[in-house]
């Protein structure tokens, strides 16, 4: 059976860029996001034996990385504060309309959008990462897409 450490390395190699970009939306810049990713994966590696396998490992590692990012920012951690995680585009001028539309979303919904579109996590992985059901993820993304489409239409119109 593949060891947890090997799976963590695989997640790192396959998901690094996506995780970094999603986390940069939380930290505000890619350098600190990179630092949080490196620290988060190191923590995951040290704790690999403790991964219980009761959810996707990608979600478990993401939670650890998010906690590292919040600590680096001098804040607390994930679950209770998911609604306080103020994510946003690192370079809003790259797509000002999208940045504005994202800002209209509630914090948790915005984070789910970043996890979906930057980190490329599946619904199941996002659900585990955010401690919500897959149905909630699906509904949230549907609402987010509708809201964004509406916002973008208004801007275009």
């Amino acid at each position, binding site marked *: 059976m593949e060891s947890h450490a090997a799976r963590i390395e695989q997640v790192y190699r396959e998901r690094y860029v996506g995780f970094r970009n999603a986390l940069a939306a939380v930290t505000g810049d890619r350098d600190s996001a990179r630092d949080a990713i490196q620290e988060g994966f190191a923590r995951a*590696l040290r704790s690999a034996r403790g991964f219980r396998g009761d959810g996707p490992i990608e979600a478990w590692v993401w939670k650890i990385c998010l906690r590292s990012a919040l*600590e680096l920012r001098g804040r607390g951690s994930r679950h209770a504060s998911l609604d306080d995680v103020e994510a946003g585009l690192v370079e809003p001028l790259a797509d000002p309309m*999208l940045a504005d539309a994202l800002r209209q979303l509630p914090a948790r919904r915005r984070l789910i959008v970043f996890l979906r579109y930057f980190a490329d996590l599946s619904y199941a992985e996002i659900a585990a990462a955010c401690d919500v059901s897959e149905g909630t993820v699906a509904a949230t993304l549907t609402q987010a897409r509708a809201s964004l489409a509406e916002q973008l239409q208004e801007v275009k119109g």
Partner: protein
Amino acid sequence: MSDRLHDPLRDRFTAIADLRDDSDWLDVRRRARRAARRRSLLAAAAAVAVVLLLAAPALGLHRVVVSFFDSEPAPQRVQLDFARQELGAPKGMAPGAIPDQTRKVVVPTANGGRTFVWVAPTRSGGFCVRWEDPVGGCRTRAVGGQIGAGWMGRSEDLTFVYGAVLSDDAARLELRYEDGTATDVPLTWVSPPIDAGFYFLEIPPAHLEDGARASELVLYDEAGGVLATERAPVLDPLTEEDPTTGVPRIVRYDERRLLHSITTENGRTIELYEAPSRRAGTCAWLESRGTLYRAFFGCAVGSGSTPTIGAGLAGGSAPVLLTGMVSDDVARLELRFQDGDRIEVPAIEGFVVAELPRQHWAPGHRLELIVAFDASGTELGRKPWDPTTRGVYPCAKQDEVDLGLGVTTCP
């Protein structure tokens, strides 16, 4: 459900995504190793503080012997470190190091390398050490273990072992592995007033695998008799923290209950949680902003295992908290202050958490007694609290006490 077939939003995100790959897996591994070592340092320092048996000064020819006073004197910065350690120690806990006698002792390692250790004698006849890889501690000469090993790394990945043996009869130290093989660990004997054999061994990579890990150190006398053995530490994985919460894994975290929540004078919300232990009993901890707060964590196996007042002050910075466990029959605590003021703190299912207001930080207004009462108002116990303990109550910079050598503390 899929949003991949046609999703213009995905196109927009893809267009602004930074696709540079600056990943570095080796850096991740280095960080993981560094942190494991850092964590082990605390345990190592505690291990070195073990009290040991006084050895006679006779030196056997089988040892590498180093003359302490002929060794290189320590530079001032190292002496200052030892001196600050004295000044910063809690009341009555200073090891009594003599900083200006600190010497540098070179210690050969088993794989042909060399490391060094700063050694300062103490007034009580023991010594304090700081290794090149800065782990350290102090030892006094009294009855206790003889090998005094510190281990770096964790149970599944022990990477170094180091320490000092004090038995005058010690002739040879051996590290045994799970696969039945063993390595001789060189001893470098340092002359009086230190009179101890120092050792440092990097555990070979082949012995970091299952079935071949380090298992114990064995100390022999000249005739091959075993003087002492010391098992390699085995970490209980349940005591490790869950990296997503900071709370030890022994807790059934998903079953946690919020017992109490306070908002401190500086606006921080502190929550007291309880959850069943994976072994027996219940555990409680403080969280703030979703992570373990000030390492406050404790488990109780059952009624009778908790003292009447197992709570105390956690200070050093704002907020100053009264927190901890109380016995099941305690309904409330009464905090009595030097100025005659009293504050009641309710016990919630065997736990308490409360903030000491700022007006009780200043000398003359501090906590001096904790009294426990049951629900009928009957007094169950008292716990005096020394209001003169330094470093508990925060203070302004200008009010700090200068202990010398750059060490300051709040009065």
